[in-house]
């Protein structure tokens, strides 16, 4: 059975018009901050420091981007960030989904206790120093794994995925069990494909978290070879340093708004490019080829 766009048969009415108008206005409001940043990244300093909202720059210049890409370190940053995002996200999906599926089984003994213990981790943590010392004792400080393992999964992700899986309903699973399939096979071959919406969401959340992460790289990596994109970009922003540090250097420039804007665009653009591929998994219903008599 193919998913039907159930709206094609109905005529437009006033409500459709209203929502479309409302959404159009909303779109302008949503797009403005991004547009403003994009415009700034291509502006001259004179335009960037002018007052008022920015819509069209009188003159387009690539100077800000030249500064951002002038050192090779940004490519190393991109590479490491890409690596941790892909590897980290894939691992997270597998671990989270498996745990969520297991916890969705109502008949699982100790289900309640295990879930409670997992929820507990959302609230109680030792903080920066204990975490660092523990990571050091595992030998992870100075490695790339330190950027992936601490983010392997979370209570938040597991529980939301659990609820989604629980709402799928037992028919699929029962049908497969009746056919004599091994439970582990059921997870990957039956349930997983049907859970694509939540998988897509987990992928987006995790990938973005990895992409934007910088603090863990700051404290866990010791070599320039392990640097991540966001750290490279943060270094361009002098404002993240204290005034007394700035005053030390005779060559310190203030970071112009154009460079700040360019760093934002440089880090968002890849996300925007990849997003549509994930979006299609939840933009329309996809119970394709599933339960049929």
């Amino acid at each position, binding site marked *: 059975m193919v998913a039907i766009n159930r709206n094609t048969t109905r005529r437009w009415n006033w409500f459709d018009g209203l929502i479309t108008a409302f959404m159009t206005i909303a*779109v302008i409001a949503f797009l403005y901050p991004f547009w403003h940043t994009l415009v700034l990244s291509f502006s001259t300093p004179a335009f960037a420091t002018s007052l008022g909202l920015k819509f069209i720059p009188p003159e387009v210049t690539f100077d800000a981007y030249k500064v951002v890409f002038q050192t090779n370190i940004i490519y190393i940053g991109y590479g490491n960030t890409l690596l941790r995002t892909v590897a980290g996200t894939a691992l997270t999906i597998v671990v989270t989904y498996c745990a969520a599926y297991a916890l969705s089984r109502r008949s699982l003994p100790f289900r309640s206790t295990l879930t409670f213990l997992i929820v507990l981790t959302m609230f109680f943590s030792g903080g920066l120093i204990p975490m660092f010392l523990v990571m050091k004792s595992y030998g992870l400080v100075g490695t790339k794994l330190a950027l992936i393992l601490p983010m392997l999964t979370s209570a938040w992700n597991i529980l939301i995925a659990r609820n989604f899986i629980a709402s799928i309903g037992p028919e699929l699973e029962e049908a497969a069990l009746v056919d004599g399939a091994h439970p582990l096979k059921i997870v990957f071959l039956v349930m997983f494909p049907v859970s694509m919406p939540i998988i897509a969401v987990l992928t987006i959340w995790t990938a973005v978290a990895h992409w934007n992460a910088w603090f863990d790289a700051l404290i866990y990596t010791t070599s320039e070879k392990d640097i991540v994109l966001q750290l490279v970009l943060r270094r361009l922003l002098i404002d993240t340093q204290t005034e007394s540090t700035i005053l030390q250097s005779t060559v310190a420039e203030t970071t112009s708004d154009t460079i700040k804007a360019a760093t934002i665009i440089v880090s968002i653009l890849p996300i925007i490019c990849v997003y549509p591929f994930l979006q299609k998994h939840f933009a329309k*219903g996809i119970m394709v080829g599933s339960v049929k008599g």
Partner: protein
Amino acid sequence: MQSSIEGATIRRSSRLLKEVWKNRHYYILLLPAILFFILFHYVPMAGVSLAFKQFSYANGIWGSEWVGFKHFERLFGSMSFYEILRNTLLISWYRLAFVFVSPIAFALLLNELRHGMYKRFVQTASYLPHFISWVVLGGIIAELLSPSRGVVNTIIGWFGFEPIYFLADPAYFRSVLIVSDIWQSVGWGSIIYLAAIAGIHPDQYESAAIDGASRWQKTRYITVPSILTTIVILFIFQLGGIMNAGFDQIFNLYNPSVYKVADIIDTYVYRVGLVSTNYDYTTAVGLFKNVVGFLLVVLANIVTSRIREGEYKLW
């Protein structure tokens, strides 16, 4: 007598063992996550004891001396404590009431859009503000709300009113927080609800259509109930985070004029930390916040356990 009790216990535990063995595959699936939580959450969790110690770099966490509730007393004894606590709770409450609902409403509205491509375009545009940091957004908001140049005040002027300095006015500041929070987060937040809606079987809509259900009825009786589990769990999580009233946003928008309505625990502790870094004090404050949040979640779990045979409970 005794032997039958013992016998019953043995039978119970052997039945339990059988259940565990029957479910062994699920435990295997759980194993990586359990290991993760033990290694990266429970092992470091012992460091929470820092909240009750005077941290000394020389002695490390274990060797530092116990000072009991000294850090908590420092927090509770501050003249500002009542104000920051009140602001934290109030702002979190406003966020729960208004900001939490908006992605749900937005997802439902998006669902009603006729044209698939347009729907995807709107949804993509809507998440973009989430990626713009509050540093940048704060600057844009300041421009929009500027009493001398801002668009909003220009419009207010058309109606004959005096310009309002929103960001410096305690009467309006929290509204600015809520509205701008919705602006920034509604698109990103709607993703999970869209995913939940996508999981609804189209058959349900078809049979409702055959029965002559209106659009509104379909939403009310099919869509909303189907995503209710998602809504409830996200609500409970939000409740757990009640003591985090949005540091990033407030920090980039506030100023001393609005301290009395906008200074929250996190912004206050941040300013304290500018003078000297006190890991033990910040651990104590974090613990306080988390205990409150946790108790609320426990409460929520008790409440949801009583409804609908625990369909919505967390654990």
